[in-house]
């Protein structure tokens, strides 16, 4: 009887287990085909080491794990994030040695355990300087001694599940560099490429045979689509199995066609451009998720002489006299413009209210955001008073003609009309409308704006060449949030033809705050927040940019997509749980 009871128990357990297995088998890979749109180019490569654009990043992101994952709910680095291998990490007391402990329960889909050797293969390849990877920027020097501009001096793996990163100096921003490279299956890559890292570029579209992610087996048709199928071996799933059978990244020419294809049901999920958000949100049969963009739009001023662009620093690190822009060299003119431009009306008119005004280089979702920081209020009289103080007057009492400079103007010759060229990239409807709005609003205070929408490549040339007067463009801020802004406003980043500090803004107090913010012992968040808020207050007053708005982003999916649960900036975090019901 005793044996019978035991047998009965075992039988029941086995039956339950088999039922569960049958149920899982019935659901795994039966969630249907997920189709999303690719309005960019084809992926340049399927190799995660040399990948350098969002298109290939999205594809390789399904196939290779990262080392430190970002929590989709917060956007901050977190241990044990599915699809990533870091279990924990810690800095030493000097703040220059970071030890990362890896999870020991993960394996590639051929059964080989994922270890530190897989991360080290990527690191060694890039540090060799023989690949086309732009991620050499994370290292201080490459293997051949060439300076690479980064802060990491060494990365090593003392054992299979530990990685130790050594930095040249404490720099809280350098933490993000560690995550620039994913892990690759070292046992496969070593066999394929050996130590001939240059050969990684020989066949960029080589299809990976071993991977770790919810999807596998790339099927690529140029200018048509990339398709991957579910990988049942992927362990880091939400439901215990990968639900969708296939993921298709379909080439679409532009957002107009992409939205129409989505509404016609040809695309399962997509991002909706600002001009279509209202009508898509009101459409039956689709569900939407709206949030503030992790970036912003702005009008950048050239503060230096645009006829003779110079770097911010010479080779010895000494400041170079860059001259002054005749109009924007004077902060009062920039402040007058801030008083005259109605950003709230812009948000209402261009975005139908779907955006948030910003006053400095920080958006409300950033941990350095200061809700008490006020911008310049809309006030034409204050604008005109500031212009008069700066030496710009209406000499003919005719509001239709621009103001002219008097002898009091700081950098403009007397008699110079208050007129400048404002440029943006053609095809970006929101930016074109921003330009037209600024043009008409500044005309009301006697500033003549010659607005041009030009091709993007040409705009980049003018922008980095620093020959512009003013420019409308935007920044995507990336994740995790890095509040260091030296690249945009510091003299080191002020490189003609290459740097991003193209406004030539140079404020020693701001520069010092940037230095303090990234070297603060222990990277204490509270102390850093205070520092970056002070720095952002300086920007809000000095206005190297006229900060405009962070537009809302909208994700949309067909009503029948189950378990679609997007977070801001992480629409697809649980894609392995999605299923499509027709």
């Amino acid at each position, binding site marked *: 009887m005793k044996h019978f009871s035991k047998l009965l128990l075992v039988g029941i357990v086995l039956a339950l287990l088999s039922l569960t297995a049958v149920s899982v088998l019935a659901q795994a890979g039966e969630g249907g*085909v997920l*189709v999303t749109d690719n309005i960019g*180019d*084809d992926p*340049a490569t399927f190799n995660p080491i040399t990948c*350098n654009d969002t298109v290939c990043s999205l594809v390789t992101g399904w196939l290779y794990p990262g080392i430190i994952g970002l929590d989709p709910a917060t956007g901050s680095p977190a241990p044990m994030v599915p699809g990533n291998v870091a279990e924990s990490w810690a800095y030493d007391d000097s703040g220059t040695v970071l030890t990362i402990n890896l999870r020991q329960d993960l394996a590639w889909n051929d059964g080989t355990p994922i270890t530190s050797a897989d991360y080290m293969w990527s690191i060694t390849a890039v540090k060799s*300087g*023989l*690949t*086309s990877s*732009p991620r*050499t*920027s994370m290292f201080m020097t490459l293997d051949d001694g*060439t*300076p*690479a*501009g*980064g802060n990491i001096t060494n990365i090593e793996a003392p054992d299979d599940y530990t990685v130790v990163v050594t930095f040249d100096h404490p720099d809280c921003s350098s933490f993000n560099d560690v995550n*620039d490279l994913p892990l690759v299956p070292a046992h496969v890559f070593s066999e394929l490429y050996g130590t001939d*890292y*240059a*050969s990684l*570029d*020989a066949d*960029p*579209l080589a299809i990976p045979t071993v991977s770790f992610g919810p999807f596998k087996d790339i*099927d690529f*048709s*140029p*200018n*048509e*689509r990339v*398709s991957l*199928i579910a990988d049942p071996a992927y362990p880091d799933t939400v439901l215990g199995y990968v639900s969708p059978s*296939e993921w298709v990244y*379909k*080439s*679409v*020419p532009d957002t*107009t*066609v992409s939205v*129409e*294809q989505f*509404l*016609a049901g*040809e695309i399962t999920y997509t991002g909706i451009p600002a001009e279509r958000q209202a009508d898509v949100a009101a459409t039956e049969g689709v569900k939407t998720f709206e949030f503030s963009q992790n970036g912003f739009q702005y009008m950048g001023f050239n503060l230096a002489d645009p006829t003779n662009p110079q770097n911010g620093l010479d080779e010895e690190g000494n400041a170079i006299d860059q001259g002054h822009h005749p109009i924007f060299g004077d902060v009062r003119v920039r402040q007058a413009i801030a008083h005259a431009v109605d950003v709230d009306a812009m948000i209402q008119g261009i975005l139908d209210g779907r955006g948030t005004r910003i006053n400095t280089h920080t958006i409300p979702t950033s941990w350095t955001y200061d809700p008490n920081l006020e911008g310049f209020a809309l006030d034409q009289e204050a604008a005109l008073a500031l212009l008069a103080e700066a030496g710009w007057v209406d000499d003919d009492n005719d509001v239709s003609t621009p103001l002219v400079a008097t002898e009091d103007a700081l950098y403009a010759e007397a008699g110079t009309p208050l007129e400048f060229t404002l440029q943006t990239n053609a095809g970006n409807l929101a930016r074109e409308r921003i330009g037209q709005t600024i043009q008409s609003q500044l005309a009301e205070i006697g500033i003549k704006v010659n607005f041009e929408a030009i*091709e*993007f*490549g*040409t705009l*980049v*040339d*003018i922008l*980095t060449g620093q020959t512009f007067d003013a420019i409308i463009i935007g920044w995507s801020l*990336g994740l995790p949030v890095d509040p260091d802004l030296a*690249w*945009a406003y510091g003299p080191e*980043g002020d490189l003609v033809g*290459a740097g*991003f500090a193209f406004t030539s803004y140079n404020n020693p107090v701001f520069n010092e705050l940037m230095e303090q913010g990234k070297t603060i012992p222990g990277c204490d968040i509270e102390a850093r927040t205070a520092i970056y808020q002070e720095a952002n207050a300086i920007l809000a007053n000095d206005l190297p940019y006229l900060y405009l708005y962070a537009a809302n982003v909208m994700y949309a999916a067909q009503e029948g997509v189950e378990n679609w649960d997007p977070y801001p900036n992480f629409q697809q975090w649980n894609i392995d749980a999605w299923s499509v019901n027709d």
Partner: protein
Amino acid sequence: MIKYILRRLIQAVPTFLGITILSYMIMWAAPGDPVSLMTFDPTIKQETKERLANALGVNDPLPIQYLRWLIGDEWKVIDEDADGVPDERPADGLTRVRYGILRGDFGDSFYLRQDALELIVQRIPATLELSVTALIVSLTVGLPIGILAAVWRGGWFDQFTRVGAVVGNAVPGFWMGIMLILFFGAILGVLPMGDRGCPTRGECTPLYMRLDHLILPTVVLSLGGIAGYSRYMRASMLEQINSDYIRTARAKGLPNRLVWFKHGAKNALIPIATFLGPTLTGLIGGAVITETIFSWPGMGRLLVSALTRRDYPIVMAGVVVGSILTILGYIISDVLYAVVDPRIRF
């Protein structure tokens, strides 16, 4: 005839070289630079940008860049073991020995990192699929319209097709494409809004199984051809109708149908033959826009994207393919003229 063709081919060589020099200079002088576009990312340091620029060779003077593209650069590197890899390892994997377009090496795409010519050749079947269909539609619709417009000269059909031809030539393809997508794809939902209609995985199905995907892009691409051919054919047909032999045929009592279609149209087709060559080139040029709008995976889309990215090797490969097609198109036209018109002898 063979001597004539050979002479034309020899004459085409300086033309071709001239086109390449001009195109290279225009491309080089145009604003925008590939490295800035590839590295428009604040996290990429200046050192990396310089390495990339050196590896791509875009820092070299224009004549060196052109010569490398034309005749290769093995004269610049030491490769004692002749394995195609410089003995002194270049800065990164983008650099290899180049043999120049005269030896069939069009260089590697800056962005896609694959052989530029191979990328174009991969996409030619899709482009031909669309272009040939559009050519057939242009001829089969445009020529009869032209004949009938000439026969009914001054009538409502003639007036209607005249206006239609002006509209067909004047309406920009990109606008027409978007309108057709919105109307037939989005509003009526009767035709697909783009792509070639291949399944999401595996080989593409035969064309006859996805003809619906071909309808809208073909309409856009053939519109100009229909307009042009109908007007050329009308003019040519009118010339024939006023000829003595047509008057004689009608005087002999031949039925109008025979006079117009058997005698008139046959001879009116002779000058049309001269348009065939340039039409082929025009169709491939037009496909650049049409393919982009309809997500058609041909070489047109590749070229548009290469232009915006300043991907010089692909742009120049496109120029070379386009120039060769144009030159050959004109030679074919001239030869065809001699073939169809016995009065012409070279």
